[in-house]
């Protein structure tokens, strides 16, 4: 509403956020779990007769770890910022203004962990054993604190708890109901990734006995996640909003706009990936000889699919909000949605970013779509509006907009009858149909013509509201 909508064809801004986030989440968790792995492996190597050989291998691990996490992890982390501000500036602004010093503190952790990682890696040949072990430990602890902080902000978006715009209590928002179960799940998941990454590096070792030794050490990192994550998921489930639980349980077969049975599919994708990782790791533990680079990369990629499922689930679980119960996905504030006068005001009077279009024209519908719908839907790509409205008639859309929020996944429509007619006509036209907004109005309300009820000049030149 207050900001322009980045109307990116086919992909849609939401998918761009998702692509970057899915890549980043895997790497960022590895960046912490791998740190724990380095620390424990340092301690382990100190107690082994072939400790020097283990440390040589560990240097190999650290090289790939360093490049992978600093190049792809750090840049995609910044990439999420770039993408979310483009996809939903209003929500990003709220998060930044509320949590700026939490983020700034996380940056301190990031600066520290990165520098320590460099001191650890570049000092490899000369640092004493005790310094190396200390650096690895410090890296892990500090990077875990960065997870602690970002976890508070991420869970706030789905379960803001007692935080409200009227009473923006940062600690209530940060330590929200989802905070602890999410932190524990992420912590166990990162250990798992540290182990899976190690299996990839171990698969490069040619000497059988040594390779088996490393594999046996690595598979243990999956065990805590395999045992505890199912219970933690039940805890996490209990913190989810009622609407989300209902969506997953029943699936949504809303007419046209819903299709959020997808949330259930993504939920199962995450669960199935977890089960496959546990099975795959068990096979590796029993038969270490099966380990190959391709196989272990495959196992790691299953974790990537698991992240994809979990991330899409988390995003869909918030629907129709981007910050639950505070801000809708299309930047409509919940508090404004409760004001009937505000919601019924002709949309063009409120929309700051429409370029002065002709009311009831096709452009009227197009700009309504852009400013109210394009934050979630593309025309014919990701979350295609064309496929969702292919059987619509102009009158159907006109009526459906009034009740679309009842599905639990769509925000309420903003605007008056003319806006509904214009948007419906536009959506029908995207499917190759032809009906004007004027004709829709005549069909649904034959006794009332637009010209009788509205001065078109007033609509186009009305002053915008912030």
């Amino acid at each position: 509403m207050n900001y322009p909508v980045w109307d990116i064809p086919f992909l849609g801004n939401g998918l761009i956020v998702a692509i970057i986030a899915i890549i980043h989440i895997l790497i960022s968790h590895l960046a912490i779990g791998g740190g724990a792995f380095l620390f424990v492996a340092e301690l382990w190597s100190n107690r082994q007769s072939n400790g020097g050989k283990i440390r040589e291998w560990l240097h190999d691990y650290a090289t790939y770890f360093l490049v992978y996490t600093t190049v792809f992890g750090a840049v995609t982390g910044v990439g999420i910022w770039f993408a979310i501000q483009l996809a939903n500036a209003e929500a990003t602004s709220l998060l930044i203004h509320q949590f700026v010093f939490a983020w700034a503190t996380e940056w301190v952790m990031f600066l520290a962990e990165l520098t320590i990682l460099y001191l650890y890696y570049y000092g490899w040949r000369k640092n004493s054993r005790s310094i190396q072990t200390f650096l690895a430990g410090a890296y892990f602890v500090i990077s875990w604190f960065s997870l602690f902080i970002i976890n508070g902000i991420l869970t706030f978006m789905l379960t803001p708890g007692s935080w409200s715009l009227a009473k923006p209590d940062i600690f209530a928002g940060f330590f929200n109901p989802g905070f602890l179960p999410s932190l524990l799940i992420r912590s166990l998941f990162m250990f798992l990734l540290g182990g899976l990454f190690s299996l990839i590096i171990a698969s490069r070792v040619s000497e059988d006995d040594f390779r088996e030794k490393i594999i046996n050490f690595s598979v243990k990192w999956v065990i805590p996640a395999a045992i505890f994550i199912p219970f933690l998921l039940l805890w996490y489930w209990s913190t989810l909003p009622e609407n989300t639980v209902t969506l997953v349980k029943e699936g949504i077969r809303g007419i046209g706009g819903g299709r959020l049975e997808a949330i259930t599919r993504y939920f199962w994708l995450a669960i199935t990936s977890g089960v496959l990782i546990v099975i795959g790791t068990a096979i590796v533990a029993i038969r270490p000889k099966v380990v190959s680079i391709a196989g272990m990369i495959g196992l790691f990629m299953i974790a990537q699919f698991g992240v994809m499922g979990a991330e899409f689930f988390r995003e869909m679980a918030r629907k129709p909000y981007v910050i639950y119960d505070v801000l809708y996905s299309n930047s409509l504030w919940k508090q404004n949605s409760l004001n009937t006068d505000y919601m019924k005001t002709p949309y063009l009077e409120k929309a700051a970013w429409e370029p002065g279009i002709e009311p009831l024209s096709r452009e009227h519908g197009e700009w309504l779509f852009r400013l109210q719908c394009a934050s979630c839907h593309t025309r014919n790509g990701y979350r295609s509006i064309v496929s969702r409205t292919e059987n619509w008639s102009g009158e159907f859309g006109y009526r459906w907009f009034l009740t679309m929020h009842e599905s639990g996944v769509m925000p309420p429509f903003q605007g008056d009858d003319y806006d509904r007619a214009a948007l419906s006509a536009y959506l029908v036209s995207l499917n190759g149909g032809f009906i004007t907004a004027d004709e829709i109005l005549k069909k649904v309300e034959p006794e009332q013509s637009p010209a009788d009820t509205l001065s078109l000049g007033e609509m186009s030149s009305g002053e915008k509201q912030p």
Partner: protein
Amino acid sequence: MTDLAGIYLSIISYVNLPPADPLGYPVPAWILLNLSFLTLTWHLLAMNFTIGGAAILLFTLVRKNSDYRGIRHFFGSGLPLGVSYIITLGIPPLLFVQVLYGQLFYSSSILVGSFWIQVIPALIIAYSGFYYHKFKRQERPRWQWQIIVVSLILLLYIGYIYVNNLTLSMLPEKWLPIYSDNPAGGVLHHGEPTVIPRFLLFLSGAFAVAGMALIWRGTFLLRWGYQDEGRRSHSFGFKAFLLTPMIWLIAAGGIYGARPEDVAMMFAASNTTTTLLITGIISGLMAGIFAFVSLNKKKLIYPFVASWGIFGAMASMVIFRDLVRQTVLSPYFKISSIPVNAQWGMFAIFMVSLVIGLVLLIVLSVKVFPRMAEMARERFDGTI
């Protein structure tokens, strides 16, 4: 300032500036501004080191002179770290600009969205290129200079997108026509004549910072007894340094040429702008003089003073830049109009963690650096 504001008042009617965030500022604006000045200066130092270093590395790769072997190794190994700190030190200024000027910054970012998001893949490719060079330059010497060219061009491209976006964020009167023509954010060139000179201005420090890094290197090499390589590093570093004032003059001349009345009014309206310019020039001169004095000497104090000179010049430019932004935006946006809803508890946590974090890093660095230096010396002795 009032006159300049008057010019912009005439165009206010076309501006649709989003309202400020309902939460307001989390601490008084002066704190946010100073944090942003400090961290942006750090970020620019890392950026200038990397871009200047990449240009010097490219020069040494193309020339293939064996005298440049040490310098090639220095930048070849150091550039991935440079990019890493560009990113890390770029986070807080990005954070604070969103708090201070969110409604401007978000709007302009969306208007150039399709370019703005390209920063991410461009940075990944550039960063990977530097790492590839670092790890594979001995093993696969072919195509190395071409890889550095690609990485350097991508970094410059990112810088150009940044300057373009941030310049556009100061010109809200241009937003609506741009958006209505390009709602996918597919437009970058918007006819603003100061974009190219501003871009050059931010790059002008590249050779000074990278040259200064070489002077530091030379000083340590002299202290360790490597006379030839130390002198070579000093000499090359100082020559590179001298490019900075030339680029700076071209950039400053370009800005004046593009908007002579606005520049004159900026100086007429406020003494602060003149003070900042003089401070910047004096700092720059101090840097240049002490960089020159450092040549062929072992004393650390000279490069130390020269480095502070660079920091001072850069910081003056950063503050000057913000003053220009506030002046240009004054008809329709004033920092003082944003309410403050203080979060002192969170601010205290941040400051304490910052102090502890910096102390920890300094202590650890003091412990580890001598060992790294030992490794560097062994490399020079040909033992590794």
